[in-house]
């Protein structure tokens, strides 16, 4: 019988598993030891694996990624935690110039099996810099892979798969879904990491999202179904590379695509989805790809974040706009 676990707990179980299975893995980050991370994702791991496998680091994100690169050169498989989305930027140089490029620069001789875990997105009433959605920066960067699970089961498997990948993976954890629960069967066999998944079939319009917005989209689809609109929901799961095949297969059936994320629409991941799907499925599209997302503003103060974030109504508004064509 599968137990119900939260997304945070599923990640914790995945980390425990990789620490057990591969002595070359190690966790590093701020407050991940005794505290177990501010979201408790690493709860209990330092106690069980020691300070050399679960490493509380100085307060310096460039240091975290820079030393992870050095550890990877030595053959380790570091799993770095960035405490919040808004604090990854001090590490941007090491990520873009080194982590992403090292393998190519070295002619394939030095792989970078590093996972960078980043709790991301808003909706938890946090203070500024704690609700950002910086995934587009990383998706635009060649050499990185970018994924985001939307639910506890994916969280469990995708994190392990990310650790097993020999490429650097930026792993975006939907922080406002950390407490969502689902049954987790740890004996199951997961599908491939870099594939999107149709999580609800439908014929009138495709709705694509990742991470925290998948749940919102599923709720929107449920609501729309009451009005007779059958929405197909795709959980992208992988942001870079994009699984364009799954998207196009759906769009060829539905003729319409709405893509949703919390990040600003302008040059957000939805821009690439729209451009690429439109190029591939030009004659299948009965409406332009509609993008629903954050606005071109810094993430707003939390008392107004609900208006900033796409919610069920805004998603359905997007669907309506697509269907209006």
């Amino acid at each position: 019988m599968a137990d119900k676990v939260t997304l945070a707990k599923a990640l914790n179980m995945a980390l425990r598993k990789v620490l057990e299975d591969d002595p070359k893995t190690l966790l590093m980050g701020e407050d991940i030891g005794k505290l177990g991370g501010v979201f408790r994702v690493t709860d209990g791991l330092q106690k069980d694996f020691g300070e050399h496998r679960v490493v509380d680091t100085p307060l310096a994100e460039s240091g975290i990624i820079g030393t992870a690169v050095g550890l990877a050169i030595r053959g380790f498989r570091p799993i770095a935690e960035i405490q919040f989305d808004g604090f990854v930027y001090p590490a941007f140089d090491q990520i873009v110039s080194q982590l992403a490029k090292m393998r190519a620069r070295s002619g394939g001789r030095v792989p970078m099996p590093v996972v960078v875990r980043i709790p991301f997105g808003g909706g938890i009433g946090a203070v500024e810099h704690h609700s950002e959605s910086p995934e587009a920066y990383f998706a635009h960067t060649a050499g990185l892979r970018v994924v985001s699970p939307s639910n506890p089961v994916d969280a469990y498997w995708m994190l392990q798969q990310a650790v097993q990948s020999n490429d650097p993976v930026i792993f975006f954890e939907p922080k406002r879904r950390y407490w969502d629960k689902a049954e987790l069967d740890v004996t199951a066999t997961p599908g491939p990491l870099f594939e999107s998944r149709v999580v609800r079939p439908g014929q009138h319009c495709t709705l694509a999202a990742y991470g925290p917005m998948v749940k919102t989209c599923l709720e929107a689809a449920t609501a729309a179904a009451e009005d007779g609109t059958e929405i197909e929901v795709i959980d992208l799961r992988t942001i870079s590379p994009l699984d364009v095949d799954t998207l196009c297969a759906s769009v060829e059936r539905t003729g319409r695509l709405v893509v949703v994320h919390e990040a600003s629409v302008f040059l957000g991941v939805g821009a690439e989805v729209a451009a690429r799907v439109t190029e591939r499925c030009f004659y299948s599209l009965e409406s332009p790809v509609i993008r629903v997302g954050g606005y071109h503003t810094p993430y707003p103060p939390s008392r107004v974040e609900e208006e900033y974030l796409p919610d069920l109504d805004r998603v359905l508004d997007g669907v309506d706009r697509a269907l209006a064509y």
Partner: protein
Amino acid sequence: MTDVVSHVPPSAGQELVQLLTPEGLRVHRDDYDVDLSDEELRGLYRDLALARRLDVEAVALQRQGELGLWPSLLGQEAAQVGSGRAMAADDYAFPTYREHGVALTRDVDPLKLLAFYRGVTNGGWDPNEKNFAIYTIVIGNQCLHAVGYAMGVNFDHARSGEADESQAVIAYFGDGASSQGDVNEAFIWASVFNAPVVFFCQNNQWAISEPLEKQTKIPLYQRAQGFGFPGLRVDGNDVLAVLAVTKAALRRARQGAGPMLIEAYTYRMGAHTTSDDPTRYRLASELEHWKLKDPIERVRSYLFRNEKADQAFFDAIEAEAEQMAVRLRAECRALPDPDPTSIFDHVYAEQHALVDEERASMAAYLDSFVGASH
């Protein structure tokens, strides 16, 4: 630039500068001291008490759901009030997110601090009105801003040809922040440009769950040695000592002698923020130890024992603090949520096509609901 080099700390030293012991005994020193009237001393006590009362109220408001978060300054009142009161009116402070006590000394309405942590604004006050920058959450960033501002002071002098005493700048940061690249770059720039900036590190022993030894193997004030300017450790729970050393450091900076690092040795008596649970990572006994060094209690003892203040004074302060708390509670609860379209208002100074378009689209979308409910 002037060549007057005043009062370089003699020690840059091994010891903790202290002027008031935890027991409230006054110590006198040759190198750093203060000479305050009784009224000034009582003023400091008032600052400390108001800071603590504000903090207690804010924690309560957070518990009641009125604030999203609150990082308590409990235990750091002396470090903040002492350094804040050391500033001249036109000195400029660059705070972290915990400098509520400094904010009070800069005459920032504490309601603005509550507004920030309530989540109705990401700023709240006019930095250039109070010479107190908005709070900085991203660890270390503000230290470079402080240095830039201080470089500007020098550049303005160079232009005007003035070389008189003028403005100095304080950069606040924590023990954890000392590990950030930005903070260390700030040290370099300050030194190279001889910027009139005082780096004021509140070493409260913890960076969330990480104790000091995760950031440094040696006392933090010694970091300054590596960058060519003096560093000094002060009892951060002693408001007189903090006031004395910060005044000296600011004066020194104003006179063109460049930056200095002050490590205010103190303790975060509360949780990191209201979201934190320190029982997971530190022993209660540590707190008990530091309670004996309480920054307010020693001032009270000193004032009382030396008959510089009587019970009526303390009662009056308590009443004033209570009044402030009552006002803040009411006003905080009454703070309206921002208008949704206000998020577009200050992204750019000048017209911006995309922002205009998105503002209009949000407005139309919100209007559609208003219509629907008719």
